[in-house]
């Protein structure tokens, strides 16, 4: 599959627009992180620095737990690094779908934004026939990153309980990411992908219930990908 990227002035704004559901889903999660960080005794600046530098939700929450429990710096860092190892697969999987002609000249900047959700959204766009474009990837990643940083700052400044009076809004925002993943799953659904999806889902449930949520995610991805290798 080869798609050459046509020069397009709308690619960057298109990417920003596509980041909207991710940004709306990220904001409350990052908000919660900002609240949790200040409750754990860190300053708003320190909470913001964690989001700015690490930019990986689950491992940021884990960083708070490790740092407040007094875990050594290297142990904490390697735990977080192990947690994000799955991201190694995203770039190659995305570029395979983008085709051989797709440019990665500016990937040193936009690929930092390849979070779980950005990867899923980009892959879904390619599956729907949209050509790969670095400005689109930059817009998509920037919208999500900006929302993550803004949410962290707002949460750290507002403190706890800001959304407690708005349970329906809180619930709707909390459902944003599951809804996005489901929509993306529907957008890439093919007969050939069904066994991969089924095995990945079952392995995730088994791994999460038997070990931990992080292990479940890693196990699900690897089990699904191996299913794809075994099917001809």
């Amino acid at each position: 599959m080869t798609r050459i990227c046509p020069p397009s002035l709308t690619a960057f704004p298109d990417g920003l627009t596509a980041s909207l559901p991710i940004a709306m889903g990220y904001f409350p999660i990052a908000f919660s992180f900002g609240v949790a960080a200040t409750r754990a005794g860190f300053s708003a600046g320190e909470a913001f620095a964690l989001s700015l530098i690490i930019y990986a939700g689950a491992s940021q929450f884990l960083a708070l737990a490790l740092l407040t429990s007094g875990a050594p710096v290297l142990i904490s860092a390697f735990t977080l690094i192990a947690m994000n190892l799955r991201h190694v697969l995203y770039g190659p999987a995305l570029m395979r779908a983008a085709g051989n002609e797709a440019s990665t000249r500016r990937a040193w900047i936009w690929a930092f934004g390849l979070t779980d959700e950005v990867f899923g959204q980009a892959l879904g766009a390619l599956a729907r026939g949209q050509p790969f474009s670095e400005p689109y990837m930059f817009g998509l990643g920037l919208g999500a990153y900006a929302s993550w940083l803004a949410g962290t700052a707002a949460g750290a400044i507002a403190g706890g309980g800001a959304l407690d009076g708005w349970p329906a809004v809180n619930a709707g925002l909390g459902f944003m990411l599951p809804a996005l993943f489901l929509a993306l799953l529907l957008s890439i659904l093919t007969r050939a992908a069904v066994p991969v999806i089924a095995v990945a889902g079952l392995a995730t449930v088994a791994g999460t219930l038997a070990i931990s949520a992080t292990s479940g995610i890693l196990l699900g991805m690897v089990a699904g990908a191996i299913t794809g290798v075994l099917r001809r």
Partner: protein
Amino acid sequence: MNWDLLAVALLAGVANWAFRVLPTMARTDRLAPGGRLERFLAATGPAAIATLFVASVLPAVTIDVAGLLPFAIGTLAVCAVWVARRSVVGATLAGAVLHGVSVWALG
């Protein structure tokens, strides 16, 4: 500034950058066209999205039984809008809105 926090953030952040950027720039997907690596990478996308969906809904369906109905309504809304409009953004927003409205309606 807490220097332990900064050191952990920098180590984890640099590793994150390397995990996301280096395999992308190295185009490791070109290493074995048609081979097992290519099939592995092709399956990684659907597997990752399925995994992330299951991981994101598991807490809702295993911890909060009272949240099952809003969850079901939100899920049906996503599916219905996707079938009708083939829009990821529209389906996502519809699912979130109906989930929030059902939480409000059910008290």
